[in-house]
């Protein structure tokens, strides 16, 4: 800078770089400008290139017939259906494997986490080795391994392994079980089931009130189970067992009828669940160990039984440590399900982000859809887990 600027009357330009307050703004502006320039460059480049080869950005292709078939469809779909319906089939398949994966991973993860703390040396070590092995091998390899095992070790349908007297057929084309066919009277059973749930919710509040007033403790678990399961079961028989089963039968190349779990789904589901369960196990272990042993001793000293100590003292506190990292594992399962393409499970990436993309050449549009859907799923899971976390948080008085 010139001498003039230094002598008492600094120019604005000088102050932009050497004035302490202004400098921080200058740096922020420059950083933001570079960042925006970067994105602007990328986007304008994409637009220019698309325009150069004459491609627009339009979602109208979603209403054209897809012209391809999908093997696992939970909603009605055939090759005449539009692309958006293929996308919907993919979304449902993704959701199915994500939800099934989250449930199994949570159960297995909690079990492993507790077993990991077992004082039995053998159990402790076996679980330890399992967790270390699973955690340190990429999930894609697990998926390929499970798929390979299912496809290569199980027999073809002609020589299917039969279990439970025809109630389950194991083949390398999938696991076949009878399909329940509902008769109209089945509605009574569903209504009974809903009544059971309603009763349980009411009963929990009632039991609590009684306990607060009199100290009497009802066996809530058993009564709830009876209301939710036994009651509909009794109604089922009163209604004359309104349920028939459609048994799978070998016809030609494949089994027809019944319900089927395809090897692609099984492989993806098991691999994702077992992989994530290993992480959840460590989270659960950390959560339980974070609770000082003094809490247990204090509870025992008050005469609380070990089971109720776990239920009322340890778990509620451990959950506060467990839930935040658990949410991110749930997100991981959902996102990792996109590896489905490796074994041909028809998820959202394989349908709209794969076949539709390829047959229509609409890369930008299809990828936008896939991105949007994963983002929505992830944000929904996050929102739910945040809500749950808040509910579980220590209420400070």
């Amino acid at each position, binding site marked *: 800078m010139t001498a003039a600027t230094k002598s008492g009357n600094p120019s604005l330009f000088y102050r932009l770089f050497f004035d302490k307050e202004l400098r921080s*703004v200058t740096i*922020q*502006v*420059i950083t*933001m*400008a*570079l*960042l*925006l*320039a970067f994105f*602007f*460059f990328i986007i*304008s*480049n994409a637009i*220019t*290139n698309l325009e*150069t*080869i*004459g*491609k627009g950005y339009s979602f109208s292709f979603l209403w054209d017939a897809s*012209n*391809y*078939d*999908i*093997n696992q469809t939970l909603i009605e779909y*055939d*090759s*005449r259906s539009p692309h958006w319906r293929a996308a919907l089939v993919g979304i449902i398949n993704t959701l199915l494997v994500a939800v099934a994966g989250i449930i199994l991973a949570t159960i297995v993860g909690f079990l492993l986490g507790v077993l990991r703390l077992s004082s039995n040396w053998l159990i402790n070590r076996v679980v330890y080795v399992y967790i270390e092995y699973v955690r340190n091998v990429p999930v894609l390899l697990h998926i390929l391994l499970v798929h390979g095992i299912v*496809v*290569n070790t199980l027999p*073809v349908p002609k020589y299917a392994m039969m279990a439970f007297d025809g109630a389950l057929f194991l083949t*390398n*084309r999938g696991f076949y079980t009878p399909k329940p066919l509902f008769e109209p009277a089945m509605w009574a059973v569903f209504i009974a089931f809903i009544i059971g749930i309603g009763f349980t919710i009411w009963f929990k509040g009632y039991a609590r009130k009684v306990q607060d007033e009199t100290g009497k403790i009802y066996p809530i678990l058993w009564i709830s189970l009876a209301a939710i399961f036994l009651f509909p079961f009794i109604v089922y028989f009163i209604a004359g067992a309104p349920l028939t089963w459609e048994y799978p039968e070998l*016809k*030609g*190349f*494949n089994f*027809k009828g019944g319900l089927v779990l395809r*090897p692609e789904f099984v492989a993806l589901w098991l691999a994702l669940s077992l992989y994530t369960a290993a992480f959840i196990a460590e989270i659960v272990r950390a959560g339980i160990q974070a609770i000082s042993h003094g809490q247990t001793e204090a509870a025992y000293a008050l005469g609380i039984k070990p089971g109720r100590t776990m239920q009322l003292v340890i778990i509620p506190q451990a959950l506060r440590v467990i839930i935040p990292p658990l949410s991110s594992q749930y997100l991981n399962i959902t996102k990792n399900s996109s590896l489905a*393409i*490796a074994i*041909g499970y*028809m998820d959202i990436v*394989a349908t709209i982000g*794969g*076949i539709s*993309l*390829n*047959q*229509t*050449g609409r*890369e930008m549009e299809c990828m936008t859809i896939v991105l949007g859907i994963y983002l929505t799923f992830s944000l929904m899971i996050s929102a739910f887990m945040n809500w749950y976390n808040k509910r579980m948080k220590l209420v400070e008085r």
Partner: protein
Amino acid sequence: MKLFKTLAVSAAVALASTSGVANAGTLEDVKARGELNCVVTTGVAGFGAPDDSGRWTGFDVDFCRATAAAVLGDPNKVKFVPTTGKTRFTVLNSGEGDILYRNTTITMSRDVDLKLTFLGVNYYDGQGFMVPKALGVTSAKQLDGASICIQTGTTTELNLADYFRANNMSYEPVTIETNEEGQTNYLAGRCDVYTTDASGLASTRSTFEHPGAHVILPEIISKEPLGPAVRQGDDEWADVTRWVLNVLIAAEELGITQGNIKGHAGSAGKDPNVNRIAGTEGDFGSMIGLDKQWAVRAISAVGNYGEIFERNIGVNTSLGLARGLNAQWTNGGILYAPPVR
């Protein structure tokens, strides 16, 4: 408010500092780079796959090499970009590749909607079915209810859906990403049938331990004219590559081979058709931005169409494909190159 101001100023600066992106001609790009980026398959024996020493060989690969020889003077100045059926068009359109030689079926929607320019047909194919002999199936009409392995991102997916629909049959599509995975699933019995272009089936079968245990059914359910493609909108580059393909086909018709092309190029003969290709009459190279010897280099690098065919996929190879439709029009096929004149 401060944040808003910061953002506004930043945006203004950003807008001021970027400019438009221009597209240069592919021919100049390739010449400047000294290397041809050829988009090929991840591995289809006979058509395009690396051999034991890692060198790419195959029917489609030879056309890439011929193009490199014509443009750059060296058939080895090719960088092969392996792609799956799904990624090939994106790779080509994004500029990662200069030309696509990957058993690609020419269809209207690919030509128009995917913004490709197809250069012609280098293999007339059709979709077929392969089944294990042990199944005892003799016709595709008997495949009702079968599980069928199929490569994703190909026209075969669409043909299959149409064929089974038209014949009122059901099937379970087992969609897989690459040819290798398809083989694994098929051999493990995950599916009863493997379907792709008949040439691809022959190629796949040739890599099996017991090729004789599998049959290719007689039905060909579609027309699959396979051909090379370039990005739409660069006519100069499309001309160069199209005429490399044409000249290789024309060379066979005119009896020009890898062995005798040097002789033809040395001195003008009686047949002006041969002379034009050998560079001793007219200057067809300069019309497409190359020199007089362009066709000579292409043919001496890999031979004419027939030689490429016989060397990679012909009856004496493990694929054992007959010329069939791919014979010259003078020999009962439909291969017919426009004249170089």
